[in-house]
């Protein structure tokens, strides 16, 4: 018993931290979101999502997050398959190289994309040099998708790599042995066995993509507003904490839905890496 108490004591700093910086702020979001400026209970801030500009920004955020997630899957799956087939000393080096960008500051990486995508940026300079037409990318939804995919791709690669790496090579061999060609083996064995990784990757890319306001602000200029930007503006520019909190609650709903879906599909937690 005494030992048990000591262990519980060790977790005290985290509990204090969680209470101070997670639970209390969360309760405050709910408080502000469900009250008006006079402190009276209201659903108005939550229902404000129905206003055209708010709804549009949520819709656009959902669409862009979805596109980014799909692109991430399409890029990450073959990559993860190649990584997991690299047995031996190169394997860790290659995985390391793919994780390396994550060690750089998020803002710096996104700023780098700014310079790449600008009208007089690196990409257009190269295109000009090759006598090809300039592309207008910066401040468009495409630029935001570029930024999201670049920033969140590792979060898709890692769970996929993890789950593919765990598939026993003899299970693949068994499918081949039973008459399946490589394509049939992939569709019937590899893909279904990697579902937990796919779900985990989707959550880890979709949720941050949906909520980001930094990527959209830096690569979308101030022209394209995602729901994250709207919320941020309500807090910082308009000082309307109630509306900001109300919209946050709506956003949280979507996050909770995607979390539940991931929990259902990934019962064993096989896809978890972080």
């Amino acid at each position: 018993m005494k030992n048990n108490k000591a262990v519980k004591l060790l977790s005290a700093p985290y509990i204090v931290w969680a209470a101070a910086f997670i639970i209390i702020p969360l309760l405050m979001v709910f408080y502000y979101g469900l009250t008006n400026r006079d402190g009276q209970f209201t659903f108005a801030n939550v229902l404000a999502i129905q206003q055209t500009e708010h709804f549009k920004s949520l819709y656009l955020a959902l669409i862009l997050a979805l596109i980014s997630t799909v692109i991430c899957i399409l890029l990450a799956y073959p990559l993860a398959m190649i990584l997991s087939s690299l047995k031996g000393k190169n394997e860790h080096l290659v995985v390391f190289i793919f994780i390396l960008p994550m060690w750089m500051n998020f803002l710096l990486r996104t700023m780098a994309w700014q310079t790449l995508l600008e009208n007089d940026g690196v990409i257009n300079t190269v295109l000009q040099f090759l006598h090809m037409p300039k592309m207008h990318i910066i401040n468009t939804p495409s630029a935001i998708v570029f930024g999201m995919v670049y920033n969140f791709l590792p979060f898709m690669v890692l769970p996929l790599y993890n789950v593919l790496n765990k598939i026993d090579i003899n299970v693949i061999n068994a499918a081949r042995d039973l008459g399946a060609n490589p394509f049939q083996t992939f569709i019937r064995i590899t893909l279904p066995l990697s579902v937990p990784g796919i779900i985990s990757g989707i959550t880890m890319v979709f949720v941050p993509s949906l909520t980001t306001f930094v990527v959209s602000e830096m690569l979308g200029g101030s022209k394209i507003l995602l729901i994250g930007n709207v919320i941020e503006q309500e807090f910082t520019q308009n000082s309307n904490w109630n509306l900001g909190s109300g919209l946050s609650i709506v956003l949280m709903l979507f996050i909770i839905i995607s979390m539940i879906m991931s929990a259902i599909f990934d019962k064993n937690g096989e896809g978890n890496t972080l």
Partner: protein
Amino acid sequence: MSKHLIDLQNISKSFGNHLVLDEMNLYIRENEFLTLLGPSGCGKTTTLRIIGGFENPDVGKVIFDGKDITRLAPNKRQLNTVFQKYALFTHMTIAENIAFGLRIKKKSKAYIDDKIKYALKLVNLEEYGSRYPESLSGGQQQRVAIARAIVNEPKVLLLDEPLGALDLKLRQDMQYELIRLKKELGITFVYVTHDQEEALTMSDTIVVMNQGYIQQIGTPEMIYNEPENAFVADFIGDSNIISSTMIQDELVEILGVKFPCVDKGFGENKPVDVVIRPEDVELTTDVEKGRIQGVVSHIIFKGVHYEMEVMANGFEWLVHSTSCFPVGEKVGINVDPFNIQIMNKPESEDEEAVGVEE
């Protein structure tokens, strides 16, 4: 039993600098239970993987039923494999696992349902069709793996240490089950194991391998009773291997004492290795009647017999006997001439691994 179903011709295989198989030649007859037996790293699993199509030999050919299948993809071969750790499809039910090969071949639903029923019955798992592999015990999973392979009616079933992960009792039960299956199906089994008891129990033919070379091919009785070299003698069962001198035909000097034996043709005063199985060493308390005198230094009760170590003329004799001789007791040792197996000494370390043609 006479037709060669599989012919391995001159197979060599290296991984990096490591030579795993060196110019191996082996044929497998139709309808035989052939076991590849040897310690880990002897090349037995690689041989099986070459037959299954999961490895390509560097040199040599695999002939199956008269056709060269050396470069044929595994899914196009008329044989199926039971893998070491079952390798079941965890996202499918037992029935779906068994149906996998048949669905790939686009058999009719009625045919598949029939086959599933038949296979589940064959491996005594009739109630388990709708369960998932993870809810089954190791032995049951192994039976599913076998069922999944045999519904495809392969001409050859390859088994890669299929009982390795099971406990002793279950392993023994499964041995009988495999023999029964083999009889019911009437197909060729190629079985890989490092367990000599398993090999002796089930096989028609045993191929003893070491370091990429075949050491001896023969029936279990031949392999056990007449090992061709010290490696085989040592690997199959316990044995006393004693460096000795062949005085003349039918007389060998073991540890300075002359023993009559039945072997001939080794020449005179030739150094040889003598193999004596521990159950063939006879002990007597009438010390003077023994050819060699010794003292019991260890005794362990093994159930069926006692296992003893007897120190005599500078050699620790391993002895199995149903009678008990307490530690410290002086005993006489006798060996029946028929039970003394004489083998030529290998001339160098390398030669210990030299291939032996049947």
